[in-house]
């Protein structure tokens, strides 16, 4: 008999909403060793169980919610969970990640994850209390906002429960619906909430009274403390800027660098940034008056980046919640709005409707630019004045999109990619979408590596697949040279493919274990970076570092070294590539919107910068070379899949004619799923 792995609960729930059948399945050791958990395992389930022809909003799509082996233990930032599906917004691999307490609670209940299939006839919510798992009636919750739903369920189930819920926007079919956990923590990107709502599942309430055993309890404490100390002694953390101000601190950082998207993506410097800054939020709305103003943390995290605030008076009195940079940027600088109260209110409205704030804000910003450019006619806006900076219009648009009211609301519900396509007349030029997903609050022209990361990200334009802030920080050049073979600068092209692929592998691994991105791609406290600082004399004493391999070993008993773990990360990236290849993603899709190549930044510190198309294509070439992908098509080579021991993926891709051999990569033929058709199907659903 196989030795049981530590850390894992060892089984996951399979809930078929069509037949009301709930079963548990064991998590195989093979799956754990190859894909670890979270993003890896949920991705594998999507690859195995969803056919590429599947309509994302049909009963055949699968929603897989998974935690990782370290989730719910004392290691640093162990509160993450991942949701994978095929996205209705993009038609490709969809994935969202969130923190806090819901994921750990699921593990205490005895499950590593939940796989949701089918579609219920009437609205349901899933009730989980340890061994007791049942689908309960949710007709009384249907149509209610996320906040009401969560409060009602806490009353119904008990205040010890953790609630993940979708909002009315997702129910109505807004393509970028989110799942909101415990009021404020959103798994939002890719429209995962819309998929959940399409299954007629309103919420999941979890309570677990069990515990998690680790493989080597004697060593665990020391390894966990080493991780905590790595953060606590990090010079970046010691400045306390991030913990004291939260992610909103990025607003002024980006503005100073000239990479803060402003008025959609017209400019990259926002004159009103100080009006909507983290400092102002702290001074005006933070609830607690302590040395750490209203800093709240996810489970087992010292960084406490979540800002909780409340508006006490004025037009938006009563608005409260956690504010984060990305959505604040989408409703703030991107819409040209410098009224912090309006931005905060807009943010919480989007949360209550259960919409991805980034996609929603981007959609409105795009409408605003189209309006100013004269592409969006006045007759389409029902008399709304959509000029940049109009806070009231922005708020009205959130209501319209969330309720899918009026022509513009219904159009906006499809997301910027589909909406601008439908508008025609050159509207698509003004979106920041890559593979159907909107770009976040960093302008690619201001940070080349970040932009490159957007282009190759597996869930469409996305910063968190790589999050290479390495180029933005003043990290000694020797470290860049040693890791990526070149000196890394913000605007340079050298070493960027190496930098992005290394970051991507690390991110895939950390999402699969259940660790927060900030630890390994903001503070850089993970092996081998603190060691390199020490090696080149930038740190005096032998530094603490967060060693993923030690951590995984003491938790689960799976012994892998750093190199082997990075291979796991690479395997997950390739798995996601395989999912995307099956739905029609090719090399041509790994690019930036034309605007970033064509228009130089008009104002601010980064004035005059744009992305050089030729050099950018060279980055893609180099990146493919590093990844072992075919430069012409973007297919994965047979050799790479063999090297990563992904035989099942290999045979599936071969069957579909989506495989090349490294030697003969020029000759390709095979079945191609028309991407445009796939994307349309989702959009049609939304429009009905």
């Amino acid at each position, binding site marked *: 008999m196989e030795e049981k792995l530590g850390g894992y609960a060892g089984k996951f729930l399979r809930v078929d909403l069509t037949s009301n059948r709930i079963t548990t399945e064991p998590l195989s050791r093979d799956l754990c060793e190859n894909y670890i958990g979270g993003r890896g395992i949920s991705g594998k389930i999507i690859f195995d169980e969803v056919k590429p022809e599947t309509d994302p909003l049909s009963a055949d799509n699968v929603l897989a919610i998974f935690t990782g082996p370290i989730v*719910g*233990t*004392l290691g640093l930032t162990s509160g993450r969970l991942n949701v994978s599906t095929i996205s209705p917004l993009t038609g490709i691999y969809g994935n969202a990640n969130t923190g806090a*307490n819901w994921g*750990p609670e699921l593990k*205490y209940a005895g499950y590593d994850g939940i796989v949701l299939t089918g579609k219920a006839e009437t609205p349901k919510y899933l009730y989980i209390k340890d061994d007791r798992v049942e689908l309960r009636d949710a007709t009384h919750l249907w149509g209610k906002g996320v*906040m009401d739903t*969560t*409060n009602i369920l806490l009353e119904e189930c008990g205040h010890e429960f953790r609630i993940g819920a979708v909002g009315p926007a997702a129910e109505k079919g807004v393509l970028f619906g989110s799942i909101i956990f*415990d*009021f*404020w923590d959103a798994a939002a990107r890719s429209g995962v909430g819309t998929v959940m709502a399409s299954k007629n599942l309103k919420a999941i309430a979890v309570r*677990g*009274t*069990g*515990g*998690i*055993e*680790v493989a080597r*309890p004697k060593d*665990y*404490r020391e390894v966990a403390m080493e991780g*905590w100390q790595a953060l*606590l002694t990090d010079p970046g953390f010691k400045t306390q800027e991030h913990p004291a101000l939260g992610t909103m601190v990025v607003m002024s950082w980006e503005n100073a660098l000239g990479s803060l998207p402003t008025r959609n993506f017209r400019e990259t410097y926002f004159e009103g940034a100080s009006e909507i800054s983290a400092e102002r939020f702290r001074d005006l709305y933070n*609830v*607690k*008056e*302590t*040395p*750490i103003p*209203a*800093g*709240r*943390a*996810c*489970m*087992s*995290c*010292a960084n*406490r980046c979540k800002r*909780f*605030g*409340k508006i006490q008076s004025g037009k938006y009195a009563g608005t*409260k*919640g*956690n504010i984060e940079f990305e959505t604040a940027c989408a409703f703030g600088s991107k819409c040209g709005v410098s009224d912090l109260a309006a931005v905060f209110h807009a943010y919480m409205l989007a949360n209550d409707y259960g919409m991805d704030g980034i996609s929603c804000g981007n959609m409105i910003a795009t409408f605003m630019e189209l309006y100013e450019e004269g592409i969006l006619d006045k007759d389409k806006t029902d008399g709304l004045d959509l000029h940049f900076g109009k806070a009231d219009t922005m708020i009205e648009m959130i209501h319209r999109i969330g309720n899918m009211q009026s022509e513009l609301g219904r159009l906006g519900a499809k997301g910027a990619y589909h909406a601008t396509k439908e508008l025609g007349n050159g509207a698509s030029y003004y979106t920041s979408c890559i593979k159907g997903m909107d770009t976040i609050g960093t302008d690619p022209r201001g940070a080349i590596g970040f932009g490159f990361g957007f282009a190759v990200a597996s869930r469409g334009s996305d910063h968190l697949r790589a999050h290479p802030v390495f180029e933005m920080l003043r990290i000694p050049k020797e470290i860049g040279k040693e890791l990526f073979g070149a000196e890394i600068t913000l605007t340079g092209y050298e070493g960027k493919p190496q930098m992005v692929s290394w970051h991507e592998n690390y991110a895939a691994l950390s999402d699969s274990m259940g660790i927060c991105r900030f630890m390994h791609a903001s503070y850089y406290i993970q092996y081998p970076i603190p060691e390199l600082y020490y090696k080149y004399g930038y740190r005096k004493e032998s530094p603490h570092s967060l060693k993923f391999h030690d951590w995984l070993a003491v938790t689960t008993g799976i012994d892998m070294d750093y190199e082997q773990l990075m291979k796991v990360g690479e395997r997950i990236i390739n798995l996601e590539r395989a999912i995307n290849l099956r739905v029609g993603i090719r090399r041509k899709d790994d690019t930036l919107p034309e605007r970033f190549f064509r228009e130089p930044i008009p104002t601010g510190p980064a004035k005059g910068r744009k992305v050089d198309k030729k050099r950018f294509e060279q980055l893609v070439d180099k990146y493919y070379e590093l990844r072992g992908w075919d430069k012409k098509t973007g297919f994965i080579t047979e050799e790479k899949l063999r090297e990563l021991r992904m035989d099942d993926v290999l045979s599936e891709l071969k069957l579909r004619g989506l495989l090349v051999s490294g030697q003969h990569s020029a000759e390709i033929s095979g079945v191609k799923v028309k991407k445009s058709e796939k994307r349309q199907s989702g959009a049609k659903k939304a429009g009905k």
Partner: protein
Amino acid sequence: MGKIVFNPNLCTGCRACELACSFYCEGIFAPSKSRIRVVKMDWQGVDVPTGCEHCEDAPCMLVCPVKAIYRDEDTDAVLIDCDTCIGCKECIVACPFGAIHFDGRKGILYKCDLCFGDPECVKWCFTKAIEYVPDVEILSEKVRAKHASKVAKAGEASRKLATL
């Protein structure tokens, strides 16, 4: 006179204390087995660490019909003698802090024992929302110092005003 001091204003709600406690006392990560609990009020954005206050006039000790609850001589912690305890759970009802718990599987009641004077939870609270004070007299000294500095500042301000 040892005591764990709870300061909700400094609590970030990370629950590392719960994890550290359950791991140290039970060998597993299980907040529902922790002696210290963080009450997370997400809707209000507030987190409050709670646990045994090791009361001087401990209600649990008073209501225990078999005198299973006693005070430790070294640490002054209020402890339960599991051999004497009959599991009537009167102490759970009596405790004003909800600091006594019942383990249904083991059939025993359990509570914070201050880790015999070296509490594990405190070692994982880096914002000092929970602190172990071996001698509570130090506490009042701290409060006095804080109060004094406030008075001094106020005095300074009033002097400044007077010179205007």
